[in-house]
């Protein structure tokens, strides 16, 4: 069934179809319509789920940590300051190896207050041990949630599904909604290995000495390293069942591109039209969408940038004192490679300012015209 729905409604459909057992959440703009929609569905009896309407995001994640330890499928959604407030518990969820799925609607963190799209919230959580998946459109949002549970429950790590504020969260698009039966066949009921068991008492998250702590962290890294293969398998199966799929990295535009435009989230959609427009105008331009930020898709990127001379990376985020976070990660990942394209790090669209086709064209033009960037950070559309 195809319906015209917002990104936040797509999230709610993803949650229903995943047969989530426990939701715990706290409202924050622009996530609110997710929790409203879910509350409505539960009140109507369309969703047999416990919804804990907690007093803070910190408690939202803590409650899910309790519930997931109890062995049930869990969900929460948040944004911006809410995600920041959860920070301690994000570490806890991954440390306890709980396959919780969280939707974060990308929004700037204040001050100054700003409720619009900006990836600095989710990217600030990059070291918390969560898988991070960025979405380009509402269909991808729904589908990614279904896939997220499969991946999370397989590798025993939590997953953050990320969508842009307003551009997706509050914008309606046609979305194909799979049937419950189709999703049941794809996503079986959650069977935890070690849930709380009165008959077999266990202690969870017990204090651990220096003698073993390193090994606990090693196992998390190993689980992260399993993700590319697991996620690919899950995506392949998803594609065979539903006819759609989303790789960690997607190339578009000209095959033998000299310049590759690198984006994530909805900026990718705009970039597709720009790259299409510039086709046949001299320099060969391609595009690369990064969907999976954690674990960082090293191998997939190495595969996709063969022969590329320059990367034009557009970051809708800022790590002050360093620059764009995607650009930094790309630089770090390419350091040990023989083939190292020049990286142009553009920052644009912070706090929800539109990243227009003109700005993207400007970035491409700069990259084509310069052998290397004149500055570490290239600001797009900055009012000086």
């Amino acid at each position, binding site marked *: 069934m195809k319906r015209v729905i917002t990104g936040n409604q797509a999230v709610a459909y993803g949650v229903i179809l995943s047969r989530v057992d426990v939701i*715990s959440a706290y409202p924050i703009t622009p996530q609110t319509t997710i929790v409203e929609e879910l509350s409505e569905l539960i009140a109507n009896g369309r969703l047999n789920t416990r919804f804990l309407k907690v007093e803070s995001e910190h408690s939202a994640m803590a409650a899910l940590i309790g519930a997931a330890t109890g*062995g049930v499928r869990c969900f929460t959604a948040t944004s911006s300051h809410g995600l920041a407030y959860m920070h*301690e518990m994000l570490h*806890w969820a991954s440390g306890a190896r709980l396959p919780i799925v969280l939707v974060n609607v990308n929004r700037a963190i204040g001050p100054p207050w700003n409720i619009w799209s900006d990836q600095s919230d989710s990217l600030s959580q990059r070291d918390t041990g969560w898988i991070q998946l960025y979405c380009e459109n509402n269909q991808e949002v729904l589908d990614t949630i279904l896939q997220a549970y499969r991946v999370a429950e397989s590798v025993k790590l939590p997953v953050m599904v990320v969508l842009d504020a307003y551009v997706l969260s509050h914008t309606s698009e046609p979305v194909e909604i799979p049937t419950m039966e189709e999703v049941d066949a794809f996503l079986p009921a959650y069977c935890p290995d070690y849930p709380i068991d*009165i008959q077999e008492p266990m202690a*969870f998250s017990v204090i651990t000495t220096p003698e073993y702590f390193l090994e606990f962290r090693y196992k998390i890294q190993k689980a992260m390293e399993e993700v590319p293969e697991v996620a690919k398998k899950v995506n392949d199966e998803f594609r065979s069942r539903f006819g759609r799929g989303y790789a960690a990295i997607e190339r578009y535009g000209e095959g033998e591109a000299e310049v590759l435009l690198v984006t994530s989230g909805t900026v990718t959609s705009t970039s597709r039209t720009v790259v299409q427009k510039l086709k046949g105008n001299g320099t060969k331009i391609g595009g690369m969408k990064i969907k999976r930020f954690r674990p960082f898709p090293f191998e997939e990127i190495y595969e996709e940038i063969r022969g590329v001379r320059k990367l034009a990376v557009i970051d809708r985020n800022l790590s002050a004192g360093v620059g764009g976070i995607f650009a930094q990660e790309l630089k770090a990942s390419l350091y040990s490679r023989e083939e190292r394209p020049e990286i142009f790090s553009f920052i644009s669209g912070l706090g929800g300012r539109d990243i227009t086709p003109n700005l993207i064209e400007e970035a491409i033009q700069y990259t084509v015209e310069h052998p290397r960037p004149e500055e570490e950070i290239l600001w797009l559309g900055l009012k000086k």
Partner: protein
Amino acid sequence: MRKMEIPLSENLGHGHLACAGCGAAVSMRLTLKALGEKTVMVFPASCWSIVPGFWPYSSFRIPVIHAGFVTGGATASGVRAALDVRGDHESVVTVWAGDGGTFDIGLQALSGAAERNEDFIYICNDNEGYMNTGTQRSSATPLFAWTTTTPVMQPKENPKKDIMAIMADHHIPYAATATIAYPEDLLRKIDKAKRIRGTRFIHLLSPCPPGWRIPSELTIKISRLAVRSRVFPLYEIENGNTYTLQEESHVVPVKEYLKMQGRFSHLSDSEVEVIQKNVERSWERLLKKAEA
């Protein structure tokens, strides 16, 4: 007080890491007897992040979950939800939090859970300070007490927060105070809490030999003097308004309680007098509530 059978079951095993004379270890042993095997215990950060033992060992014979400092009320809400979803409505979810995790950093999560009337027992194991980190003051530390952050030159300037009044005003079905010198009373209250649904709160006073600067053999005696001096009266509150006092007939001046503890050894007579007056005022207030 009527005689009662204390269950023989021991769900706190050997080898735990509590200090000699730890009031909380006695409290825990008794509490687990009353709660029985069908119990899941949540430990926000406190001495009890350490006491049960280091990985891969546990001295508990029930499932226990260690949780973030702030999260007692929230984690327990989630555990309860999961058990309910799995069809287990019988097992009792119990939080065992310190006074720091209850009066201070965990108050928001506890208040949220109590407002939602989440179905669990919340036990505040109150040793009147951050004892696990080396005796710093909390909002449960009594007036004029010494701690490492309220040195004798500048002891605690504020009276202890009235956590029972706060919990009563959440109108939860059951709240009670208890302490180890009165084991029958403690067991009866846990047992009573176990039979009620919704948020139940037990304020448990557990003397701490290193933190209170008391000899380890005096834990029970000091627990008893806390009640006899009316510093820590024993009572129950049902639905936030029905108060029942367990009155101790043998009443002593607060001096008897204070003089045994190193943390109060710097007190002047006038300071003792202030504490005595405060205790009397609190007692009067409590009596009024009980009569209402």
